[in-house]
């Protein structure tokens, strides 16, 4: 993109500017915010949570980075590790800090850095406080899976609970559980069912209930093996086995959930720790699935808003140039053979797709009309975009909206890498035959269910040694990383306390390809 895109009218600036120099202060920030809000709500029709903008120093930004962007976080060495690494990179000038961090909460909190110039603050406010904010509030995944109103309370609860546990049971004991739970974080989400919303009061109550329940009950499931009156029966018949499996709701893809509910020898406080990690993982799950759209939406919003500000004569040419300079850096997409290439830049593709949708709405070509009959030429770009932002995630969004024109622009191509072949083969390029294939393939790359290993709790050996049995469904012959897998199994055994077995089975034939075993603890 370049400034050549500016409409000529934009150059005839009139009226007084929001700010004249690049130093920011709270008054200017407030004025800029109001001007941005007018455009965002009035012209783009954005619907946002109330905003809370917090100014922080670069040091505080590093702190925020380390605790995965959340304002309150429990203590754990891994955050210290992250901090140490980022601190080192930052000091050596290898890494610039993000201009902002925005938190999916109500009110929506955006952190902006004091080092930013006023034009940059304008960009950041438009990007985070309106772009991301709108996306958080409206996208179906966030609406369904996260409770923006409750997250801060919950984090405070989690932090206090963990601090309390550390006091009572020792840092080391807590760390052991947390390390293990962290290792399973990616497998601690419900992908299909809707989880209940978090509520602090209920959370505390539930914890109390659990304690009471624990004091008064044994878990039925374990009765069947332990106290049948006679010796444990090694041949529980198939029907009974199926019944138990049904009771355990197996198979279960949320490993952390299964451990929290079913691990036989965890103390209640340990279950609670597992639950906390699981909840936080679940909270971030929508963000992982909508990275491209979320950034695309925010980038499109800031780009549109700052251009409108300039058209209205509210910011100077210089300020716009500074903003665009930074914007251009953010949406830069190096080619695959460029040394800077590190995957497809979500800002670049996301932003390009949003602009492309706008173009299709306003000035479609014949090709667009053929590919997107539903909205080509409907002259309602912002309505169309709002609809897309609300109802898609990266995978479905690409499958639905990636246009041939954009594929040509990015010169996308698809290569296959078959094991045991000598060379990679080009499967499709940006031509009439390849569009659909490339689009479908790219969309699959954004599908977390394929991106992350598909691992489920398959069974528990109830008749025998209570070994936990996991399966990894192997797609396209892609196995697990051995070293990592072994280490994770150790962590699982730490929580499960009995043996753990992981079978890698071919997804098509159900044949077991490889088995990992981790013996019981103690």
């Amino acid at each position, binding site marked *: 993109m370049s400034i050549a895109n500016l409409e000529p009218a934009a150059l005839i600036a009139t009226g007084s500017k929001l700010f004249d120099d690049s130093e920011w202060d709270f008054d200017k920030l*407030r004025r800029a*915010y109001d001007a941005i*809000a007018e455009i965002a709500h009035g012209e783009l029709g954005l619907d946002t949570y*109330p905003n*809370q*903008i*917090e*100014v*922080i120093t670069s040091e*505080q930004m*590093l*702190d925020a980075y380390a*605790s995965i962007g959340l304002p309150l976080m429990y*203590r*754990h*060495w*891994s*955050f*210290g*590790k992250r*901090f*140490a*690494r980022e601190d*080192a990179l930052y000091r050596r000038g290898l890494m610039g800090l993000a201009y902002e961090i925005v938190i999916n909460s109500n009110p929506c909190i955006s*952190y902006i850095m004091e080092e930013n110039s006023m034009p940059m603050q304008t960009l950041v406010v438009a990007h985070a406080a309106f772009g991301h904010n709108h996306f958080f509030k409206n996208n179906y995944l966030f609406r369904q899976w996260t409770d923006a109103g409750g997250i801060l309370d919950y984090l405070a609860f989690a932090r206090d609970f963990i601090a309390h546990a550390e006091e009572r049971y020792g840092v080391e004991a807590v*760390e052991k559980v947390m390390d293990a739970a962290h*290792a399973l974080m990616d497998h601690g989400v419900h992908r299909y069912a809707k989880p209940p919303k978090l509520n602090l009061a209920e959370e505390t109550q539930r914890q109390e209930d659990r304690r009471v329940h624990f004091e008064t009950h044994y878990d039925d499931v374990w009765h069947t093996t332990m106290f049948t009156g006679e010796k444990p029966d090694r041949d529980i018949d198939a029907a009974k086995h199926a019944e138990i499996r049904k009771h355990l709701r197996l198979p279960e893809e949320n490993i952390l959930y299964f451990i929290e509910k079913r691990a036989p020898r965890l103390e209640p406080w340990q279950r609670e720790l597992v639950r906390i990690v699981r909840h936080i993982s679940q909270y971030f799950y929508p963000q992982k699935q909508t990275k491209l759209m979320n950034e695309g939406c925010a980038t499109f919003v800031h780009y549109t808003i700052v251009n409108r500000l300039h058209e209205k004569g509210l910011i100077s040419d210089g300020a716009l140039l500074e903003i665009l300079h930074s914007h251009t850096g953010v949406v830069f*997409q*190096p*080619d*695959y053979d460029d040394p800077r*290439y*590190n*995957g*497809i830049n979500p800002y670049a593709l996301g932003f390009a797709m949003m602009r492309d949708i706008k173009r299709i709405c306003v000035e479609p070509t014949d090709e667009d009309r053929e590919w997107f009959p539903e909205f080509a030429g409907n002259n309602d770009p912002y309505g169309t975009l709002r609809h897309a932002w609300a109802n898609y995630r990266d995978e479905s969004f690409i499958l639905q909206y990636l246009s041939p024109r954009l594929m040509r622009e*990015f*010169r*996308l*191509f*698809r290569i*296959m890498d*078959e094991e045991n072949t*000598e*060379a*990679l*083969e*080009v499967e499709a390029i940006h*031509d009439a035959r390849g569009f659909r294939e490339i689009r479908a393939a790219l969309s699959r*790359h954004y599908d977390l269910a394929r991106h*992350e*290993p598909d691992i489920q709790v398959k069974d528990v050996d109830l008749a025998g040694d209570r070994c936990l049995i996991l399966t990894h469904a192997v797609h*396209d012959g*892609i*196995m*697990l990383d051995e*070293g*990592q*897998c072994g280490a*994770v199994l150790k*962590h699982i055994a730490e929580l499960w306390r009995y043996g753990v077995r992981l079978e890698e089975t071919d997804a098509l034939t159900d044949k077991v390809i490889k088995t990992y075993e981790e013996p019981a603890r103690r």
Partner: protein
Amino acid sequence: MNIIDRRPNPKGKSLANRQRFIERAKDEVKRSLVDALKRRKLGEGEGGEKITIPMRGIQEPSFQHARRGGSRDYVLPGNKHYVVGDKIERPKSGQGDGRGKAGNKDSGEQDSFEFVLSKEEFLDLFFDDLELPALVKTKLKETEAMQLTRAGYAIDGTPANLNLRRTMRNSLARRISLNRPSPRQIEALLRQLEFARAADDFESAAQSQHDLQSAQLRAKRFAFIDPLDVRYNRFERMPKPVTQAVMFCLMDVSGSMTEAMKDLAKRFFLLLHVFLTQRYKHLDIVFIRHTSNAEEVDEETFFHSRETGGTIVSTALEEMLRIVRDRYPPGAWNIYAAQASDGDNFSEDGERCAQLLANDLLPMSQYFAYIEVGADATLRHGFPSPPTDLWRTYAEIAPAHANFAMRRAAEPSQIFPVFHELFAKRRERAA
């Protein structure tokens, strides 16, 4: 909309996490610290240390797909000339297309982890369980380094030391308890009197007149500030702990000392230097090298230039004694010395060395460490090699002096353990 300025919030929110992380990686960090030290120059005690540690132990594993194998596909941007069906040579890892590069970067990250320790963290970790023997000088000459220390209040003193706050506090308490009328009260009485006179109310005027007079009398009788109230700051002369130290590095540079031996010695000096900088505000280093005669040199010359000649150790000890007498009065300086040698000495010199050490140097030094470096293979395997001349000499005087220690080291890996042994808490006497 709210704009909140969070900048005044306490920073270092991650500090506790950072400490936990370092605690966890402690062993690895220590190991790499020793490596890092090798690269350092002796004078460079300042600043943090960049640390690279292996990922073992601080790994955060998760289930991940293996990097190779199976059939995979990639969608890449920026096609230049490929058409469907083209074969592309499989890129070597780390070269070629972006995927290879990204993979390479990731695996690099997994092997090691780099971060910066602050100076305090560095020193704390490094000297975790070490302590300095005889940290503070026990005997201080009276003329040396006294300093005035605040020591409460006194009822007499020079006006310059008047403690106004204390004085006024006493004064106020006395005025209140003796019911001394304040100027405002007197003024009020005066006004009352005028009022009464103006109103021609003679009775109350007389009353007011009386009140006023007695108040004025009272104010005159009880002074605003009485000598009783006055307090002065009191100072005492306290001996000032000596916070400066000098470190003598003595090394044999005769032909028999190989580069490898010098390197060992250097490492030992380096450790001692860093250790001492942690404890003392001011640290001087004196390098004395010797063959058959000794001289004071700079660091570069000390470690790198070669000399030929015989070996007379006592010359170095004499040189040290001379420098101490010239520049470092033992009352004002903590004196540490480390001597490195391969153990060769002119056989007639042993007696002189022992005398110098036992009678002159040891009594004035905080600590004197002798480290014998050698490439002797037998040392490594733990078999006793025949003791060298110098070793025999020193071994005789060692038992009588608690501040003298001697050790042997044959290879770099032994330096830190030896150092550690010398300064470990609950130090055992040297053999």
